[in-house]
């Protein structure tokens, strides 16, 4: 426990394309949560969290803003829209696109020692 991982390491492990927030790649992430249901994400109290999701719309980015998420990984090859990049950039949220399935993404991060929220 208490281990952290850099945003940059997450991008490398997942072979992900960082679409915005390049200036925050050295930020530390403490834990990860995976969900396509934003109301569940909004119940979390953790800091320094990466969200893994397949839900690619404005509500994901708004949820990241309200819940103070540092980083969102979009799995299954989902593409981020320009509107999402605009809002995420305003709020210092890193967005990355990953070709892996959600299961594989979670497995890779779990093997790397990223903690669950609960």
């Amino acid at each position, binding site marked *: 426990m208490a281990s952290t991982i850099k945003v940059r390491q997450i991008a490398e492990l997942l072979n992900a394309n960082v679409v915005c927030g390049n200036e925050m790649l050295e930020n530390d992430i403490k834990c990860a949560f995976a969900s*396509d*249901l*934003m*109301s*569940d994400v*909004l*119940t979390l*109290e953790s800091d320094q969290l990466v969200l893994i999701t397949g*839900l690619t*719309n*404005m*509500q*994901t980015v*708004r*949820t990241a*803003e*309200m*819940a*103070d998420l540092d980083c969102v990984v979009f799995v299954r090859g989902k593409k981020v829209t320009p*509107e999402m990049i605009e*809002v995420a950039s305003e709020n210092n949220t890193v967005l990355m696109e990953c070709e892996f399935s959600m299961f594989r993404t979670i497995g890779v991060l779990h093997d790397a020692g990223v903690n669950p929220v609960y």
Partner: protein
Amino acid sequence: MEFSYDVEGGNFAKAGNAASSVKKVLKQLNVDPKVIKRIVVALYEGEVNVVAHAYKGKVLVDIDTDRIYIKIEDEGPGIPDIDLAMQVGYSTASAMVREMGFGAGMGLPNMKRNADKINISSKVGEGTIVELTTNLSS
């Protein structure tokens, strides 16, 4: 300080505009980030409820030195049974709302959890008013 925002029923692209704006104001007022998060999560869920269920709505925000008062008022179908709507997992949301990442029956419970005081009144066929009050000091 008072602010007001219009919310359009069905327009998910704009859901969160009021919460985003209130978050910026509270940050400028140096409110504790944990308190800000509670307030904006509750307001955001409220906006999503209006977008998901109502025809149109209005958010009124009143901030003073020690508390924030938020009134989310909509013209919509209303809530026939508020106790039932407050239950985690109960939802009348459409498939479209679920595709947006909501509609799992968490909205009102999330709002209650993140406000110091919540008051809900509703008239079937007319609309719903949700009032949230939260202390700004942590």
